[in-house]
């Protein structure tokens, strides 16, 4: 058996009708939402112009221009491929430098949050778990606000978010631990720790001097994709490229963890080590999303749960489903957040909250025991 075959076999699930249609539908939804997102806004343009801007030869035939757009002036300049973007038409400039990156960042944020939620749900064997509910998002959020307030560089954001998320998760586990934990205890501890970190965030706000920074911080806390560009895209790409393959490779470990701690260890898994490594992976995914989009709630809860009801609990299939449905949810929610109220933009987290909150309530009403997958 060739190495290549083995890797492919380890990463990709059997595509059956259900999973294929989930992937196809989600992709179509993302593309459609992207077109809407790109066409409408302060600078309106007909679809024909959108089309021409997207496939503008000035961009596609000049690698240097493409590199400058995606990598940014600074990085492209250092690599010696910088080009002058002022030659581009207005439509192309708007599409390529403002609206497209927003969609791209939304895709990655959705994928990361959904994967993080799916992994947390397996680690805690609890379908109510999500980065938000386990306090990881709040911890990451607090760290990010600190970085914003102390005006350290934006490249610290993912690192700070990861550190804050880890601290919060460890705290939740410590609070919930009494010779083992139960799903309900974890959720309760998560809510408490989350509340504490949220208070700390609010407290830090009083040290913000400028109004602009204040507004950034507030919209960021609600989870916003307003004003994200290729810089944020680069920021979220690096961890994503690590998280996605790692999660797919780890799918079998997640399946075995779901059989319960005793059985997993009887099958030869070092449960604590594995759980620790997988938590780190999920925290990294959360941190990547939080660092660029702030606290976008409920994606990590709703997406894995909805996908699970369709494809079952096999983690390879579940994760692949999440990788497509997560982006669909976030990109569509961002269209609503940006264009739904006419003039005013609202944070995308408000929209996902309005969708996810009721879903969560429904779940609570229907679930009898908290750890039935």
């Amino acid at each position: 058996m060739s190495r290549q075959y083995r890797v492919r076999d380890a990463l990709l699930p059997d595509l059956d009708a259900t999973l294929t249609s989930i992937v196809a539908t989600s992709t179509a939804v993302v593309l459609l939402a992207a077109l809407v997102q790109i066409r409408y806004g302060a600078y309106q343009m007909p679809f024909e112009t959108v089309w021409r801007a997207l496939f503008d030869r000035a961009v596609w035939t000049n690698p240097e221009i493409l590199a400058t757009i995606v990598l940014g002036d600074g990085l492209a300049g250092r690599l010696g491929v910088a080009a002058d973007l002022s030659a581009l038409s207005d439509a192309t400039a708007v599409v390529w430098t403002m609206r497209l990156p927003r969609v791209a960042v939304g895709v990655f944020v959705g994928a990361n949050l959904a994967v993080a939620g799916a992994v947390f749900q397996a680690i805690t064997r609890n379908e109510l778990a999500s980065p938000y509910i386990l306090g990881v998002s709040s911890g990451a959020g607090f760290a990010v606000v600190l970085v914003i307030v102390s005006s350290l560089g934006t490249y610290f954001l993912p690192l700070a978010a990861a550190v804050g998320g880890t601290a919060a998760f460890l705290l939740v586990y410590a609070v919930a631990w009494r010779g083992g934990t139960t799903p309900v205890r974890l959720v309760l501890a998560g809510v408490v720790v989350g509340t504490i970190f949220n208070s700390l965030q609010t407290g830090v706000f009083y040290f913000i001097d400028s109004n602009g920074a204040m507004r950034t911080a507030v919209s960021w806390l609600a989870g916003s994709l307003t004003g994200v560009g290729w810089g944020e895209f680069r920021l979220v790409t690096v961890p994503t490229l690590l998280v996605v393959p790692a999660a797919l490779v780890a799918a079998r470990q997640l399946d075995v963890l779901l059989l319960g701690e005793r059985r997993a260890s009887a099958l030869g898994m070092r449960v604590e080590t594995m759980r620790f490594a997988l938590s780190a992976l999920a925290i990294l995914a959360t941190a990547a999303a939080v660092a660029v989009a702030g606290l976008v709630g409920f994606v990590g809860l709703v997406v894995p749960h909805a996908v699970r009801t369709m494809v079952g609990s096999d983690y390879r299939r579940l994760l692949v489903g999440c990788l497509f449905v997560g982006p669909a949810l976030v990109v569509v929610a961002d269209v609503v957040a940006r264009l739904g109220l006419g003039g005013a933009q609202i944070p995308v987290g408000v929209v996902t909250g309005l969708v996810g909150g009721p879903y969560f309530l429904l779940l609570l009403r229907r679930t009898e025991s908290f750890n039935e997958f």
Partner: protein
Amino acid sequence: MSRLPLLDTDDDTEFVPEDPVHDAALFATDLELAYGDDVVVDCEDLVVPDGEVTALVGPNGSGKSTVLKGLSAELAPEAGTVLLHGRRVQERSAKELALELGLLDQENDAPGGLTVEDLVTHGRYPHRGFLDALNADDHAAIDRAIDLAGVEALRDTPLSELSGGQKQLAFVAMTLAQDTDVLLLDEPTTYLDLHHQLRVMEVVRTLNEERGVTVCVVLHDLQQAARFADYLVALDDGGVYDWGPPEDVVTEELLADVFDVDAAVSFDPGDDEPRIVPRRALE
């Protein structure tokens, strides 16, 4: 009960049995197991002979399941040693241990969407590397396990649609797919109806007879234990009360001393097992 040669357990790092017990698959000496400060098991010698079916019997709270946890290295002993094929269980990595020793307990808890085949496939976990796909050996072991456990007809059925007994057979198949020489079972029949109790025990018996697998099973039903096991270990209050073939161990005295039951035990020449007729509970 015959005394076994004592082992020198002073040196923790390099354990060299003075006189290794060759015919024991599992051998525990001076075993002391505790939950926190609460010592539950304290027994001198406990032997699970190679290639035989050994049943641990005893009343509730006698430490049967705890002994099993000690044998499977799930619980680290406060004192004493557990040898698996002459080597301490703690010396092995989790994976090495899972290649030699399989474990099945009474609780079945798994995601309901999983099919029987998915579950059995997880039994191959210790045989596979991090990135390994299933190879021919794995497929063969999975087929064999499903066949042996008699769940072929349920292969593609989700676990959520199975009865308790069918589910237990699916878990038996998973443990069989692990393909170990030694199998520990913790009350595998407790929550099952009579039909499935017998089926589980027959699978275990077949496994032992055809593949020479050493079985150590905790059973609370003494009659069932006497029927299926080659050897019985009767536990009383965390210690070994008696050890030997069922016809030697199952006596009226045992039932009175250990189980607090006044019973008549008869052994007809035509039977291969003692017959127990309980009369009343003793104070």
